[in-house]
């Protein structure tokens, strides 16, 4: 029997009797990272990275959380489990599962470029690799983070020159943390939507250091926001909530912004292809580094990506999961 099986509740290790990122409540869930499509409510116990725990508590409430450090192995019913940095967001981990010399790695979501805050992606050798494929097409090749930051900074300066506020749409857990430092190099007049602010608070209480930001006060007079940067989650885009920042321009940080049509469709002023997922080359390099003889491809462009791997001589199959909502531009991408 395969060490990890694909069941209707999620990825399941029968010998260890635990699930990885299950989408139904289970007894024991090992969690790659704190995004809501991977860490779901209702399981009896959770095992995750130390940095992930406070985020899970914030999102899912009190519960039974155990934590591990990266590279620190634990045995679950005789199956060896360890976490390894995935570089996706703070605390995000690949999950290595070993039994009788058979090693499987579940990537969760990952990116190969070191963003300086999420931990550098660690290639882990294995027999079977289960990889995401959110951006598994060769049109997705990211610019370097430092260059995108310059684009964002220039855009903010342009906004200020037009006397407009700069509203940046960025996922509250992940991109918001990445862009805060470069924004702070341009201005200290930074305000965040409650959802974004809450995550910063949680991370700050866990000991992470970030520049100071203000929580947006619904009752504050409009005049309070002038030549300001507003960080808001995707749910706030094009909402009445944003009206109070008029005049403003909207910039969106998302890998989907790589394609012009997506920028235009959203009727925004600027799109920055800043992603917390690996790009095409990142995925290929990561897979090669695992030296895996079999690769399962989950959420994203799984059918194209796994076909390509097969044609390249890497045995591969696509797997349907409930992560990343098919090909939607989900939050967090």
């Amino acid at each position: 029997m395969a060490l990890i099986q694909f069941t209707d509740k999620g990825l399941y290790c029968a010998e260890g009797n635990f699930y990885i990122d299950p989408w139904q409540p289970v007894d024991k869930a090992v969690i790659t990272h704190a995004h809501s499509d991977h860490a779901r409510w209702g399981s009896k116990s959770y095992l995750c990275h130390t940095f992930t725990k406070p985020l899970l508590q914030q999102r899912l409430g009190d519960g039974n959380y155990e934590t591990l450090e990266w590279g620190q192995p634990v045995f679950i019913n005789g199956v060896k489990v360890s976490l390894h940095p995935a570089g996706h967001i703070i605390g995000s981990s690949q999950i290595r599962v070993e039994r009788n010399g058979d090693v499987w790695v579940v990537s969760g979501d990952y990116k190969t470029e070191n963003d300086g805050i999420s931990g550098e992606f660690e290639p882990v050798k294995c027999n079977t690799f289960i990889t995401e494929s959110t951006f598994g097409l060769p049109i997705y090749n990211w610019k370097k983070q430092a260059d995108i930051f310059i684009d964002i900074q220039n855009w903010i300066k342009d906004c200020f020159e037009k006397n407009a506020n700069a509203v940046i749409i960025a996922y509250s857990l992940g991109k918001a943390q990445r862009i805060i430092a470069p924004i702070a190099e341009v201005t200290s007049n930074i305000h965040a939507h409650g959802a974004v602010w809450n995550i910063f608070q949680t991370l700050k209480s866990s000991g992470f250091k970030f520049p100071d930001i203000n929580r947006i006060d619904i009752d504050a007079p409009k005049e309070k926001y002038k030549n300001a940067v507003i960080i808001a989650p995707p749910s706030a885009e094009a909402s009445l909530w944003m009206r109070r920042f008029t005049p403003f321009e909207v910039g969106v940080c998302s890998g989907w912004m790589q394609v012009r049509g997506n920028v235009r469709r959203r009727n925004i002023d600027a799109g920055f292809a800043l992603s917390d997922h690996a790009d095409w080359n990142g995925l290929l390099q990561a897979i090669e580094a695992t030296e895996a003889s079999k690769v399962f491809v989950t959420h994203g462009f799984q059918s194209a990506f796994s076909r390509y791997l097969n044609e390249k001589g890497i045995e591969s199959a696509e797997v349907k999961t409930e992560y990343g909502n098919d090909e939607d531009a989900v939050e967090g991408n």
Partner: protein
Amino acid sequence: MDEMLTYGEDVNEVPMQVGGMSLFAELIMSLGTSTKTNDKLEALSNYFSVAGDKDKVWMIAIFSGRRPRRSVSAALLQLWCLELVNLPQWLFAECYLTVGDLAETISLLIPPEIMVPKEEQPLHYYIEQLIGIEKQSEEVKKQFVIDSWRQMNQQERFVFNKLITGNFRIGVSQQLMVNALSKVTELPAATVAHRISGNWDPVMTTFSALLHESNSDDSKPYPFYLAYAIEGEPAELGLPHEWQAEWKWDGIRGQIIKRNNELFVWSRGEELITEKFPEYHFLKDKLPDGIVMDGEIISGRQSDEGFVVLPFANLQTRIGRKNISKKQLQEAPVIFIAYDLLEYNHEDWREKTMQERRTQLEQIVADLQSSEVFLSPIIAFDMWAELAATRVTARLINSEGVMLKRKSSAYQVGRKRGDWWKWKIDPLTIDAVMIYAQKGSGRRSNLYTDYTFAVKDGDKLVPFTKAYSGLTDKEFGEVDYFVKRNSLEKFGPVRTVKPELIFEIAFEGIAASNRHKSGVALRFPRINRWRKDKKPDEINTLDDLKQMLEQYGK
């Protein structure tokens, strides 16, 4: 410190090489993403103030439909790109489906690693090279295209590919470009619009010759005056006797020009279509010289009461053909319905009142005594309610509704509110179920926005139309979500979906068609609204469609 800064900025203002491809690419990018007309105007004006003269001329040419002929096929571009990046064809097709644009797909697939930076060339260099290689061998073309790709960043590559493949759909109207040119040259917009129209060759024309010298091109049409749809009730327009009502016709808006004994026929899309309509050629001998008429090119024929108009489908058989056969001339005869007189006796009449222009136009058309050129009939009415009652009969004569023109109005430039309004009849509608979905292109790539709809025929569902527009972005998002979760099968880019979502489809006309399974073809189908209140068994039937065809399709 402040002084230091100022000094520093001055130094930076030493002119750099101006008018390069990067400048053009940046313009295209900012026009493509800008959501505010003012920002677009600003970006265009900036471009026109800093770009080189030859680049400016090409910019005007490209955005007024004067792109040079295509010298490299899409198939070759794709092939060369695949060779360069070493990817399989099917993967290219996947990428194209996601991006929705060939030029952009190629620009994204070529990785920065293979770039060979070189001194930047201006826009006109690339265009003139592309013209130059048109007749050259495939090897020469390939060399030029690949070299160019390697010299460019992704944005420039995208724009370069667009120069080859086709239209820049970037939400810039010709009017906006005219306004920007007007701002930069300090000429009135109407003058600019007129000067950049007509027959001119971007290769031979300089910027100043185009805009500043009076151009002696006899073929030059005037910019069309276009109406907005009426908002609210016509009664709000004031007294009925101040207004002239005419039928609104669904043909090709056009201008017929005779100057120096030569005849020119222009479409609103600024296409010279004289040769396509031999019916008009007699006007060369019959019209007085120095005259420009505005009107509708439309399929129809003389009748006892003047003329009858045939469905638009007839005219369609004439569009896009170079040579017109005798049979086509008989089956789809074309007439001209004259609306207005823009030039008379070599004089620009646009500033005169419509009443004056109309009086003279009536005289001209009467003198022609022609079975091809007719005056646009005036609909008599004393009260708005009377006109409203006449309007609803429009479809019976293949008209789209009513035009309202203020009798004292001048002939203006472009789409303007105030003096001209269109008051269209309500569209025909039918309730249908979505059965296929396909991803959109351009702004809608990666989202299922192109749908095929079906009506009931007993137990069967018969597809009868596609529709691409009419939903809000939010609704498109919802439908997209449904499609991704309710696909039954996948055929290439098309997914069949559970027949569950009901939409009201609106359309302007219906005609018999043997190309379609349903036997009908609709004119301007679009989604009117999402009928969340209806169930699949409550949709209309094929018989309902056939009845509409019987009533309106003849």
